[in-house]
């Protein structure tokens, strides 16, 4: 129930909304009031929004500060004040919420029953997932295609365009192609029949994938012959290279990183274990062979199942700046508890686990990114700032899009989320527009 009253104080119009929470037996409790003041701004173009009474993630700190938005971008209020002599048209009381940049998931294979690699209608599938991710605070993502036959790439790649998010769903920052150029002995859930090598280097890659305009990221195994050529050529085209599904030793990993690879795919999973005399790829986290002005990023599945809390702590403590939370979620994410038919598999969801029905075999992650952020915080004690940055700033850095995404800096896209003190998502905004609302904070 919503009751609206309007009052006029001088030139300021005050709107008061009273909301009621329904109690048992038809009784309502007055919940509380939100007010927004509409002042006539001097500036005609674009309504100016001021989010007040909030703590914002700004320059690696949570600070008590207002967030200003106009035309879908974060606005510099000081410039507005002195240069345009303008002020807010609408003030929104955030009731002490935290405001952080919208989350970015650079590795997600599907959700809500959709598998991006299997579906016939990838566009509708992506739209469905994009919409469902909003309530988890995700404002952009990289739909991920796992090792597939060539025809899948050639059908899917030209269709999936990079786009900004909207009320209809999170934005697409480009595809993440996880395979098929990986090591069969670390195939994980990938179908070994489709795994490829590139005897002719980049020529084979382009021949296999076809048009790569919409590709943001490729996961490959650096120990494959000709990987130097492939990594160099991909990087030249602005496609980010992540190392994964690999048996690479440390030296091979470092070489690939120095050739341009910038990330490790789901650290600890589908790679050689760390050994103190032969650390393999995991050792790259503390490498002294990587130029100090470069950051090596690594994806981490902090679902509490695929990476042990102790492993989360080790990674976070040795290399916090490189930590990128990913869900690596499969189509079962977002489906209710019980048995589901997905593709040609029967999957059972019990709590936070998805298993092949009737067995205890894990069939992939079903964690949501907002849960992973809270879980990382809880298990590592890394602090809210880092926890939030691992799902916003860091993935934006990996993709080289920090001018628009992943921060609340002036001029950035106004993709942001409101969170309570425990980092539960209260509302999601894309380009300044509210695209999802928990209903728990009245007046947003």
């Amino acid at each position, binding site marked *: 129930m919503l009751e609206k009253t309007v009052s006029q104080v001088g030139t300021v119009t005050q709107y008061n909304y009273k909301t009621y929470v329904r109690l048992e037996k038809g009784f309502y409790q007055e919940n509380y009031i939100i007010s927004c003041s509409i002042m006539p701004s001097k500036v005609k173009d674009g309504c100016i929004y001021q989010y007040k009474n909030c703590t914002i993630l700004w320059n690696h700190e949570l600070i008590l500060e207002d967030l200003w938005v106009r035309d879908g971008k974060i606005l510099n209020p000081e410039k507005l004040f*002195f240069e345009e002599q303008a002020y807010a048209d609408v003030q929104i009381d955030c009731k002490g919420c935290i405001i952080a940049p919208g989350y970015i998931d650079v590795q997600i294979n599907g959700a809500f029953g959709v598998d991006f690699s299997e579906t016939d209608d990838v566009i509708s599938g992506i739209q469905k997932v994009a919409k469902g991710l909003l309530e988890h605070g995700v404002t952009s993502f990289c739909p991920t295609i796992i090792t597939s036959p060539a025809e899948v790439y050639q059908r899917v790649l030209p269709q999936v365009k990079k786009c900004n998010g909207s009320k209809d769903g999170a934005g697409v920052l480009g595809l993440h192609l996880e395979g098929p150029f990986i090591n069969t002995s670390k195939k994980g859930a990938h179908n070994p029949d489709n795994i490829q090598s590139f005897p002719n280097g980049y020529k084979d890659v382009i021949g296999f994938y076809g048009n790569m305009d919409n590709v943001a990221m490729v996961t490959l195994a650096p120990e494959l012959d000709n990987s130097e050529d492939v990594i160099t050529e991909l990087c030249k085209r602005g496609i980010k290279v992540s190392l994964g599904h690999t048996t690479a030793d440390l030296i091979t990993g470092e070489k690939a990183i120095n050739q341009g690879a910038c990330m490790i795919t789901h650290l600890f999973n589908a790679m050689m274990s760390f050994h103190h005399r032969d650390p393999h790829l995991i050792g790259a986290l503390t490498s002294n062979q990587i130029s100090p002005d470069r950051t090596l990023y690594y994806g981490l599945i902090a679902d509490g199942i695929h990476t042990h809390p102790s492993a989360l702590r080790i990674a976070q403590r040795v290399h916090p700046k490189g930590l990128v939370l990913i869900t690596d979620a499969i189509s079962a994410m977002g489906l209710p508890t019980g048995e589901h038919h997905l593709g040609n598999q029967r999957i059972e969801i019990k709590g936070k686990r998805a298993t092949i029905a009737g067995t205890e075999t894990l069939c992939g992650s079903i964690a949501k990114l907002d849960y992973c952020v809270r879980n990382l915080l809880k298990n590592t004690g890394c602090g809210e700032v880092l926890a939030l940055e691992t799902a916003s700033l860091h993935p934006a850095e990996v993709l080289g899009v920090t001018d628009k995404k992943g921060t609340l800096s002036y001029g950035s896209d106004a993709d942001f989320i409101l969170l309570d003190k425990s980092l539960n998502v209260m509302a999601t905004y894309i380009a300044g527009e509210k695209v999802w609302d928990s209903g728990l904070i009245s007046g947003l």
Partner: protein
Amino acid sequence: MRLVILDTTNDVSDWTAKYVRRKIHEFNPGPDKYFTLGLPTGSTPLGTYKKLIEFYKEGSLSFKYVKTFNMDEYCDIPRDHPESYHSFMWNNLFKHIDIVPENVHLLDGNAPDLEKECEEYERKIKEAGGIELFLGGIGPDGHIAFNEPGSSLVSRTRVKTLAQETIIANARFFDGDISQVPTRALTVGVGTVMDAKEVMILITGAHKAYALHKAIESGVSHMFTVSAFQMHKSTIFVCDEDATMELKVKTVKYFKGLNSIHMKLVEEPESQK
């Protein structure tokens, strides 16, 4: 002249902010009648600004019908430089209160024609009906705004070259690098401040004790520009105990004896109770 002696710096901030609040309320500003306030920057007024923000937040003070004029601004650093007085005022006062941007006035140290900028500023002050209350602090060498020793006591708003002492003192705000400190500033003149109906000078800390002595117990001199306010018909010096160290016992005793009157000055007018 009044000299208000309070125990601590915090008391000075509290008293000053209450005085400003009372003045605004007595004036009873409205859409056709703005209260005009002159403002300084620097560490001395910070506490007062904090209190004024508190008053706004608790609802006991509005700046809706207040116009402000700042004393000075550096030349040759960008407006949004963290050490610019624009940034200072934004971060320490304006962004926290309900002041309307078009009622805020600061000198533009990057104006293409600095002389014209200064003339315009004087004109705008006149247009606003003059300044009702000018707040100020002082430097250890007695400068008010950037009116360095030797400034004419009838000076108006103009470009001023900073004294070496000021440049050295300000280096701490520019990574200790003296070459980064601006060497010129635009500043209101001593005469500009003298034209205000009322002037209030805040002086706190032992390091300003000699300056307070020179300001009120020595003669009027252009080598100590704040002393000019001995000639102003309504000036209040507000200081803490530490700043009285160089004063005569007689002076301190006399003004402390007036404390009960001073406390009455900050009571809210009947209409606001």
